[in-house]
């Protein structure tokens, strides 16, 4: 078991190393001079040359790559061209709304999707089951920014149920700031609940067909206990997996949702960075998010060990 965990952690480092390599290559493989690309067409040759030296682009590519990886390993992701601050600082300053947006929408999705998924599996083929599946598929087909815009227009602007956009002023309290995240979290949660619902239903269906469920029923155990104690416990593994996978969806969704609701989070920062040609920030965001994804999936894999005693590596 210790060997398995060690092997997985080693594998994680290899993948993160590859993530760094890909992030490095994305900017370097761009057609033309990255410095000229970052400064835009108005830059003078002197400015471009100065930036080349600053970013170390005048050194051999192998040296650049080596420096990049060593710096990143030490937590240095370069300097933002726009903010003139370390990328890690720029990202950290925008992390709060993104983290809470992702968290709230995950909670919202779980609260909606898990009970419906369990019930749909339990009443397989019923009207409720059919409607749950169709609604989930529909939710996964609607662009989240479209739902966001519609909710913003009708629920926030017209009915005034939620703040329409922003994240409160500079003096807004924590509670006030979180209030701005309610509607965006619902929008993002709807999209993610689709995947969680389908996974929950499918894994419950598998489990409900097992022998030990029949045994539990035949010895007269009450249905709620069969479903919640016996079935749900064993269906937990795939549900944990899907929470890990949902992370990628949440981040992609957050980028767009933050733009709709004008929330100053990491997603909004990345889109602005694209428009400002601030490549170190884009690169940094890619590395941070992908590394988190790899880490979360490692954690969910290791959680199997505690949830399901049958899993032995």
């Amino acid at each position, binding site marked *: 078991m210790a060997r398995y965990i060690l092997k997985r952690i080693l594998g994680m480092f290899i993948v993160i190393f590859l*993530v760094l390599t890909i992030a490095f290559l994305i900017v370097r493989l761009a057609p033309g001079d990255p410095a000229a690309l970052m400064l835009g067409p108005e830059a003078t040759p002197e400015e471009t040359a100065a930036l080349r030296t600053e970013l170390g682009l005048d050194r051999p590519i192998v040296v650049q790559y080596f420096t990049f990886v060593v710096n990143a390993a030490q937590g240095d992701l370069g300097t933002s061209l726009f903010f003139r601050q370390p990328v890690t600082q720029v990202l950290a300053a925008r992390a709060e709304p993104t983290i809470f947006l992702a968290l709230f929408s995950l909670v919202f999705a779980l609260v909606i999707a898990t009970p419906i998924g369990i019930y749909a599996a339990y009443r397989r083929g019923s009207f409720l089951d059919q409607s749950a599946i169709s609604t989930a598929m529909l939710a996964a087909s609607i662009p989240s920014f479209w739902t966001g815009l519609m909710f913003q*227009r009708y629920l926030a602007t017209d009915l005034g149920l939620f703040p329409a956009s922003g994240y409160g002023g500079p003096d807004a309290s924590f509670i006030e700031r979180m209030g701005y995240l309610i509607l965006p979290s619902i929008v993002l949660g709807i999209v993610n609940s689709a995947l969680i619902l389908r996974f929950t239903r499918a894994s419950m269906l598998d489990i409900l067909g097992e022998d030990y469920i029949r045994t539990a029923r035949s010895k007269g155990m009450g249905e709620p206990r069969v479903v919640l104690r016996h079935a749900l416990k064993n269906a937990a593994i795939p549900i944990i997996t899907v929470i890990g996978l949902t992370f990628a969806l949440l981040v992609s969704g957050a980028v767009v949702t933050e733009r709709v609701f004008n929330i100053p989070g990491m997603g909004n920062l990345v*889109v602005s960075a*694209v*428009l400002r*040609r601030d490549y170190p920030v884009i690169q940094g965001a890619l590395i941070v998010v*992908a590394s988190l*994804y790899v880490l979360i999936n490692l954690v969910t894999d290791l959680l199997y060990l505690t949830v399901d005693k049958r899993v032995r590596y």
Partner: protein
Amino acid sequence: MAAASAVADQPKFFTALFSRRAVLIALVIFVVLVLLCVFAPLIAPADPAKMSVRARLTAPGADYLLGADAFGRDVFSRLLYAGRVSLSIGLGVAAVSSAIGIVIGLMAGFFRRLDAPMSRLVDAMMAFPDILLAIALVSILGGSIVNVVIALSIVYAPRIARIVRASTLVIRELPYVEAAVSLGSSTFFIMTTHVLRNILSPIIVQATFIFAYAMLAEAGLSFLGVGIDPSTPSWGTMINEGRQYIDQAAFLIFFPGIAISIAVLSLQLIGDGLRDALDPRLSKDL
């Protein structure tokens, strides 16, 4: 196996495909949508670029079926022409990502030495959230239809590669591949004829889903203003353009959103149907 026999036995394949009425309805809707867009020049009541100051933000009605935008252009006509762009991007991404994914997956599955490095590379690629990676790629390549297709194909190719690798690993060990090797068939011939032909079903199913995801992703990129040239109408750019008029003319956003949702939903239903019909071993419940 499944693909070859199912395609050879066509009536059976179609019976299986349409055994769920939703799949048949989805296919009909999708075909109608494609035809509307393909024959846009014949169907569209107006030139999609023709502006009219007097018609600015006209609500849907007799003159303008789905209303007119901020420049007085007919929304219905623009929707049909925009659909050509959105559908082409979806189809393009499905085709290109499948091609890249097949090559990577076959190599990883067939050559043991390449397996570990290629699989780790695929893992690393899949660690990037799709929109984020696409944004980064488009920002480097520049926003154009071709570049959006390239960027999204790079984003989705690992999904195909993973499926192809897994299927190749199984098929490689089957007796008929062994027989082909002992008969002296070239590796390329075995990979394309024996292996690829037998793993087409999961590829087709996955490509259908990628078609749908790519349309959603393109709309997202265009909405963020980092996708295709904003002057080219796609369903995503239409929503982006209409955004500033959302309080006066929500219909500018409403209709393109409905168009995307219908296209994506029907593609997902078709994908589900294809999965059941082509490869019954795969789970029906997911």
